[in-house]
């Protein structure tokens, strides 16, 4: 997904983009599109809108490059632009999200039909994630995305490392609670 860049090549790429080198910006998009698209597509359920938003992230990056001071890593800054855009979206709760609710005992895991349980859990989990507050959603999407370091997540959300961990535990707890109650 995201390729590691040393600070020199990152700096060179930013400088080339600032000078109007179209090829350099194309390279930047190629490097970070996986990370940006994954975050946005996981947060926005409509694929066409997700693509529009991912494109908008890169347009904002392009507009903002002259203001990028290089105080953080380029990937962190791009991720922050994406997070800000995702958080600014109005919250939409799909109507089908309550389908999983109902009476009955809590489901047990580790039973014989594990793959079916996993599929069912994934479906319920996706619905429950959409019910989380936007910042918790972003935290969960970001944390479980390969290639994104814990430190980068903290920097992108402008939170101390310890706070990110606490918030992540709260987010996962809230998700679990939703699965234990509304999405059983």
């Amino acid at each position, binding site marked *: 997904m995201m390729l590691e860049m040393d600070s020199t090549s990152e700096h060179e790429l930013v400088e080339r983009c600032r000078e109007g080198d179209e090829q350099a910006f*194309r390279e930047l*998009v190629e490097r970070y599109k996986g990370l940006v698209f994954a975050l946005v597509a996981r947060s926005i359920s409509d*694929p066409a809108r997700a*693509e529009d938003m991912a494109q908008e992230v890169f347009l*904002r990056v392009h507009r903002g490059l002259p203001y990028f001071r290089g105080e953080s890593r380029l990937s962190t800054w791009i991720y922050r632009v994406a997070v800000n855009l995702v958080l600014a979206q109005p919250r939409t709760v799909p109507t089908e999200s309550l389908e999983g609710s109902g009476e009955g005992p809590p489901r047990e895991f580790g039973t014989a039909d594990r793959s079916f349980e996993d599929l069912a859990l*994934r479906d319920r989990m996706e619905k429950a994630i959409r019910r989380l507050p936007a910042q918790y959603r972003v935290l969960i999407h970001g944390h*479980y995305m390969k290639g994104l370091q814990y430190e980068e997540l903290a920097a992108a959300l402008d939170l101390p490392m310890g706070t990110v961990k606490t918030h992540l*535990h709260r987010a996962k707890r809230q*998700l*679990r609670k939703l699965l234990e109650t509304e999405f059983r």
Partner: protein
Amino acid sequence: MTCDQLDELIEAITDGESPPEECEAHLASCPRCTASLALARALDRTLLAREVPAPPPGFTARVMQGVGQERWRAEQIVDAGFNIAIAFGVALIALGAVALAFSFGWLTVDRPTIEALGAAVQPWLSSLADDLRTVGLAAMLLTSALAVWWWVEGESSL
């Protein structure tokens, strides 16, 4: 240890943090908390195993097309500004040339024409003079607001 106390620790335990000793004892005797821990672990597994959405083919090309359009729009604005400045300059030069022509006596206008022109322009000039202070203040405020908006837009679009 109560169920509520253990519930607070479940995500930390799932993350691999070592739980207090009382947790083991509680879990051994509480099916509800055991199920919650199993659910938290299953959630962790499922979140890790989720497919990462990949950008559709042609994504980069479409971004570059958007960048090109934005650049074109910016150039259009610069071009429009440049054209207005040129037109303003040409008008100033023409006005200066006419004024020079008058001062050297190469161009003359008979008195009735001047009086007719003066009478036509007079009401407009006097109303403009009355509103000059308000119009000037409004123009200054508008220019300042546009400058501040332009600056803030540049910073906040990130």
